[in-house]
């Protein structure tokens, strides 16, 4: 499952926001926790049963194998025993072969076998019970048969040959061969040809069972007998790999048979023949029970698990409704919801699309002074002052056409009307709700009487503060003006009179006296200069006497002379000379501050402009320098630097007359101070 899928599942299973699991999910988890180990145990038990079943089948195979081995051994032993009896026959001892033929034919007819005798040393005549005495053939024995005969002669013991095709009986046979020794020489070789049909019958008479196969192989891995289709396979060789893997005396292997079907084989090699008896079971049969058991167990386990979880989930849901935690397991009941609705801090009213009140909560009823259910069925305009009702109905219809949550009457002061007719300020939020196709509007109402009063008080206080500050600033300006006048006109004139009087005294003095008077004059001159400077700095009288434009032109030029920075003033006397005193003073002070800043901070500047222009009812004052500029944010970031630029005082002064300050600075280009002052057109025209 992808990460997104997991988190989606997590959201589904847990309570949004809290990260807690619901009761129902917790119950399901508990059931799963109990059930899972139980099912795993059951699975393990059935696996053990499966392996027991397999062992059982294998044991069955082993039993069959042993049984078959015994029977085949018995067959061979009985034949060998017969051979030994025949070898001891007196016919052979007296060399009466015809008598022996007659004797043996009786036995062979009885047993369905063929008895053969011949004299390997003397001739090629072979006496066989399969042919009458008169017609005993001279023939060449098959190689397999001869090989076994040679072995028998050498060992002097009974030997069982591999499968060969009997030339007389025209059938597949194996021979039990025994030499009849006389004076250390094999005088006769006696053999009994056993049709391999005998072995097939053994296998067929003791069938190994459904899906099982028994096979007998001779030493050269030729099939002697097979429990099924023996005629087809007898006398043929088995697969070489199978032969190789069964070369031991006994064992187990998995190998497909020649029909291509996978088998599980157990095998055993017989002594002394060296034959292999093997019994196999189809792997499919061996595993069938395991598969079936596993399928049953898995199906039963999964079904049980699913049923248990499903039932728990369903029951858990019912439990949640009764016992679960509110908000996590279940939704509030009617009673709880009503309680919450009535405990909301704000008034809530639900109206239909016609503006009819459907639902109110207690805070709203209290706020408007109505009893419970009083308002139900009333038009919502009941809550609004009479004069606003028709407008409200129209607004309500507009809202119904374009319903998006929004505050009502944004930027207007809304009033609510109580039952007793009194009105109070409110704040209203509108939320459209559509249930199926019916549209409702929910409105939350907050009584903002307190807030409006506080806001009004704050606003009054701020206005008062501004008025006081303005008054203070104006008083300061007035005082400066008065002081400046005083110093200039009164003290200055008196000083002038004093210098003139000193001059007048000069003619009454001798050389010594004149010399001293010169010193006095120098002092008076110094005093005059100081006086002039102080008065000028307090407030240049020229603002009033020459007009602001001329004064500023002069001021900027003086500043330029003092600082050595080229500076120019551009402004038209008709734009600025007739402005109110306060505005003119402000303009002068702002320019003064700005130029001081440039001198202090923009030492690289070599070109400064002070420009005053008028655009309609706005006076635009611009001061720019081509200094290095600065990063405004950085410069204004720290209060001390901010203060050092005198920007707050400029801003303050401008705000007193409704103006605004803007500063633009760009590194490498310079800094520009923009001051905008609104002016009444009449003022400028006066």
């Amino acid at each position, binding site marked *: 499952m992808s990460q997104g899928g997991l988190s989606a599942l997590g959201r589904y299973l847990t309570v949004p926001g809290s990260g807690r699991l619901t009761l129902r999910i917790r119950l399901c988890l508990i059931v799963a926790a109990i059930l899972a180990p139980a099912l795993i145990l059951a699975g393990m038990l059935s696996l053990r049963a499966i392996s027991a079943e397999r062992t059982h089948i294998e044991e069955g195979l082993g039993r069959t194998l042993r049984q078959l081995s015994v029977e085949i051994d018995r067959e061979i032993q009985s034949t060998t025993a017969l051979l030994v009896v025949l070898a001891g026959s007196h016919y052979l001892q007296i060399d009466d072969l015809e008598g022996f033929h007659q004797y043996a034919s009786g036995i062979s007819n009885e047993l369905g076998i063929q008895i053969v005798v011949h004299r390997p040393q003397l001739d090629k005549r072979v006496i066989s019970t399969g042919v009458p005495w008169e017609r005993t053939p001279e023939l060449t024995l098959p190689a397999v048969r001869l090989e076994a005969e040679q072995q028998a002669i050498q060992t002097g013991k009974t030997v069982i040959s591999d499968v060969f095709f009997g030339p007389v009986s025209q059938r597949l046979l194996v021979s039990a061969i025994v030499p009849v020794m006389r004076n250390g020489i094999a005088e006769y070789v006696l053999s009994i040809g056993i049709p391999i049909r005998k072995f097939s019958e053994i296998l067929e008479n003791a069938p190994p069972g459904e899906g099982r196969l028994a096979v007998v192989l001779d030493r050269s891995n030729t099939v002697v007998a097979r429990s099924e289709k023996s005629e087809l396979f007898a006398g043929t060789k088995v697969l070489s790999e199978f032969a190789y893997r069964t070369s031991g005396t006994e064992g187990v292997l998995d190998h497909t048979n020649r029909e291509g079907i996978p088998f599980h084989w157990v095998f055993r090699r017989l002594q002394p023949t060296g034959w292999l008896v093997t019994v196999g079971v189809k792997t499919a049969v061996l595993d069938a029970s395991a598969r079936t058991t596993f399928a049953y167990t898995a199906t039963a386990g999964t079904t049980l698990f699913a049923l248990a979880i499903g039932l728990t989930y369903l029951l858990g849901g019912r439990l949640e409704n009764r016992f679960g935690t509110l908000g996590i397991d279940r939704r509030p009941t009617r009673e709880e919801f009503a309680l919450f609705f009535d405990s909301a801090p704000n008034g809530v009213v639900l109206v239909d699309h016609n503006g009819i009140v459907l639902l109110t909560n207690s805070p709203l009823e209290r706020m408007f002074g109505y009893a419970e259910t009083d308002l139900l069925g009333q038009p919502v305009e009941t809550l609004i002052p009479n004069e606003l009702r028709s407008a409200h109905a129209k607004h309500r219809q507009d809202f119904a056409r374009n319903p998006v949550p929004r505050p009502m009457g944004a930027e207007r002061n809304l009033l609510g009307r109580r039952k007793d007719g009194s009105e109070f300020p409110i704040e209203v939020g509108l939320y459209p709700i559509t249930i199926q196709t019916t549209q409702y509007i929910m409105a939350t109402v907050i009584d903002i009487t307190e807030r409006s009063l506080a806001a009004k008080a704050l606003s009054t206080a701020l206005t008062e503060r501004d008025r006081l500050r303005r008054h203070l600033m104006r008083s300061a300006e007035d005082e400066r003006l008065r002081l400046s006048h005083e110093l200039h006109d009164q003290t200055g*004139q*008196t000083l*002038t009179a004093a*210098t003139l009087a000193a001059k*007048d005294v000069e003619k009454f003095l001798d050389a010594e006296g004149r010399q001293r008077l010169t010193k006095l004059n120098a002092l008076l001159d110094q005093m005059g200069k100081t006086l002039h400077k102080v008065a000028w700095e307090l407030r240049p009288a020229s603002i009033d006497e020459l007009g602001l434009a001329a004064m500023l032109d002069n001021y900027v030029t003086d500043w330029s002379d003092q600082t050595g920075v080229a500076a120019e003033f551009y402004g038209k006397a008709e734009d600025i000379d007739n402005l109110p005193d306060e505005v003119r003073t402000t303009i002068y002070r702002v320019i003064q501050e700005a130029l001081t800043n440039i001198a202090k901070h923009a030492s690289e500047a070599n070109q400064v402009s002070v420009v005053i222009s008028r655009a*309609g009812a706005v006076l635009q004052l*611009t001061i720019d320098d*081509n200094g290095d500029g600065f990063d405004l944010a950085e410069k204004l970031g720290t209060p001390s630097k901010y203060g050092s630029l005198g920007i707050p005082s400029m801003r303050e002064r401008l705000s007193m007359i409704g103006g605004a300050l803007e500063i633009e600075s760009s590194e490498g280009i310079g800094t520009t101070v923009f001051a905008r002052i609104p002016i009444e057109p009449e003022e400028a025209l006066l």
Partner: protein
Amino acid sequence: MKDKTRIVLADDHPIVLTGLRNLIESESDFAVVGEATSGPEALKVIRDARPDIAIIDISMPGMSGIVLTRRLSEEAKDTKILVLTLHEDRAYLRQALDAGARGYVVKRSAAANLVSAVRSVIAGGIYIDPAIVNRVLSRSPASNRVPLPEIRDLTDRETEVLKLSSLGLTNKEISHRIGVGVKSVETFKSRGLAKLEIQSRADLLRYASQVGWLADI
């Protein structure tokens, strides 16, 4: 008496007036023929007495010395005007000279310089108080600028930016108005100013008023 230079004094401060009279009359060839303590009175006294020279203050009730000088230049052309004032601002000096005054002496140095100032003016010269004369000479008046170049090679954007800038808009406001970045506005502005060979905002304003940009307001 005939050879004496006839002088009228106008100052609203009686003690200054007294001091001046003492100073003037200590010169044997000077004679004070009238005194006034307000602008209108001075106008009347001078018109009646027709002195050779009138020494007048700028700050006087009723009529400022500058206005008085202007009127006397028309109504009493024979009388030379010497302004004696506390003001050391060169703006006053220029106004006084523009109005027709032939001399300008600051009161601080009156005791030392007034007599020689009067003699200079009588002799037909112009006297400016040494205390402020150096500041006058160091000045390179803005009005003497070379004629501003015609609009040339300005792109539409440069023209627009310079025009809005001359109206007092900040770069940021211009940037909003024409929809380009502030850096671009700075570039347009500096390129435009370079093309017009304008170095300061004051010159830009002069140029703007000449080509009529400001008339659009």
